[in-house]
């Protein structure tokens, strides 16, 4: 893989909280236009890794290189401006702002921060809302949305930043099967239309297996496997890791059976 194909390099990242090691020497690369699934049992350090990439946490060791530039330890707002956008696992809408205004914040302070005027931001925001199907709610206060809509608002806000790399932290959690299907469709669509690279943390196994080009598995902060979905689903170490969580292990086994 030539270096221009690679948009993100996570190189030997270690992050500790006191005695707890949340990430231990995690390394992987992401190609342009790729969807990478990031999976692992609860407490595996997935969200921590996102927070290291977006600058919320400074890693104790290791580097994060985005589009050939070392962004390790830069403040989150600078990293956002370089073209990385993230959705939150626990939705954080600006409740007393309208849905449109929420998305406008993404546009105003995203990759083209300081170049986007209010009117243009409004258009960008409206486009993102259309993409995720929230355009009808643009004038409502964000507090009024339901969980699915709030998750879609997170996505619209991130998309309004016009990123090159999109980090999705459990956008599917808590949604019903129909909503999951719709959301996957939206993610595929925006990825193709906007030529995005995507990393998604997900517990909904069939969805992540379905949509990802490649998958990285974290367990107790370490990377224990990396590969295409088929390889991961048949990887004994991965299944063992999930055995601590019988439900998820069962999903793996089911998938193997149905194959």
């Amino acid at each position: 893989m030539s270096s221009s194909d690679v948009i993100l390099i996570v190189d030997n990242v270690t992050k500790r909280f006191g005695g707890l090691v949340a990430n231990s020497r995690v390394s992987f690369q992401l190609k342009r236009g790729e969807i990478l699934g990031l999976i692992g049992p609860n407490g595996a350090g997935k969200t921590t890794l996102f927070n290291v990439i977006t600058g919320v946490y400074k890693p104790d060791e290791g580097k994060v290189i985005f589009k050939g530039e070392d962004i390790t330890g830069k403040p989150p707002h600078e990293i956002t401006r370089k073209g990385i956008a993230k959705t939150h696992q626990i939705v954080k809408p600006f409740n007393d702002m309208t849905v449109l205004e929420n998305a406008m914040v993404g546009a105003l302070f995203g990759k083209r921060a300081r170049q986007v005027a209010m009117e243009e931001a409004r258009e960008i925001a409206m486009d993102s809302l259309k993409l995720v199907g929230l355009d009808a709610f643009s004038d409502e206060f964000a507090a009024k949305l339901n969980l699915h809509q709030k998750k879609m608002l997170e996505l619209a806000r991130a998309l309004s930043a016009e990123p090159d790399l999109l980090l999705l932290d459990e956008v599917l959690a808590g949604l019903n099967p129909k909503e999951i299907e719709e959301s996957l469709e939206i993610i595929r669509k925006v990825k193709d239309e906007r030529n995005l690279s995507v990393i998604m943390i997900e517990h909904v196994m069939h969805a992540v297996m379905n949509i990802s080009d490649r998958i990285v598995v974290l367990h107790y902060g370490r990377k224990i496997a990396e590969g295409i979905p088929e390889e991961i689903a048949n990887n004994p170490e991965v299944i063992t890791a999930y055995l601590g969580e019988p439900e998820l292990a069962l999903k793996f086994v089911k998938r193997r059976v149905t194959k």
Partner: protein
Amino acid sequence: MLKEFRSVTLGIIIAIIVAILVARVLHLTTLDTLMTIMYFMGIALSLNIIMGFAGYVSFGHAVFLGLGGYVYILLVYFLEPLNQLQRAGFGIGALLVSVIAGLAAAALAATVGAAVLRLRGAFFAIATIGLDFTILYLMKAIVPELNPDQFFGGQVILPADRIVDKETIFNAFFIATVVLIAVNYYIRKSPFGMGLTAIKEDEDAAEVLGVPTTLFKILAFSLAAFFTGMIGALFSLNGGGVDETLFGLNHSIDMIVMIVIGGLGTVLGPIIGSLIYYELYDLLLVHYPGVNLIILGVIVAIMVLFFPEGLIGILRRYKIGNVRLRDILE
């Protein structure tokens, strides 16, 4: 779609400004009354920049009022050129000197803000109270030393040859108020204002969305301090001097209460809030002298418990016909 209605806010603002001007030209009331109204409006709109938009309640904001007052009065007391300047240009000169006072306040806000704006909620509020008392006691210690024969207990009274006539002060006050309203309006409509509101709603999410939160908070705090300092300066000039009571918590109370009555995060909120507050103050004082401020306290408690969004905040929920008030009271 409701663009034509959006200008209602602007209409109300212009009407209020014109009303002040008309009252001045036709001598409908005294200059002092008008200046008191502008003083209340001014301090409410100043604090609004950090409290209303960014959600940081500064309980010690009177520190900038006091600092602005002291800087202005001491400057014209000791420096003859500035004493000359404040009389020049029908108020422009006084305005320029008050800008120096405002800059001093802004400098303090930027320096201290860089540190204390890391604190949130009550901790920030308490830190600003600490700042207020620090500067208050420093002034009490230092000011008497500047002229031990005159400045007893930190009180500075301007001698007759350094006092400015009220017409001049009115002009300076008026320009400052108009600029301050314009700044509030601009912030509300600008990306800066969007960023501040995002900070108020969820600071961590705002930072991840690309809002330079630290920079914005310091900017908002410094702007709020700048205008508070200017108003403290003109207020003191009108009073012919300054003393430590300008640092009093009661001034911080005034600012906060006006914003709470009017509604946080809007431009009209603090303006309407200050007008109501002024009227209430007056009315209660006339009809219930002595207990007027006790009643005021009860009113504030009722507002906080039952109408936390303030007057404009409540109105914003409703519609008249097809027009949502939210769209026109922006």
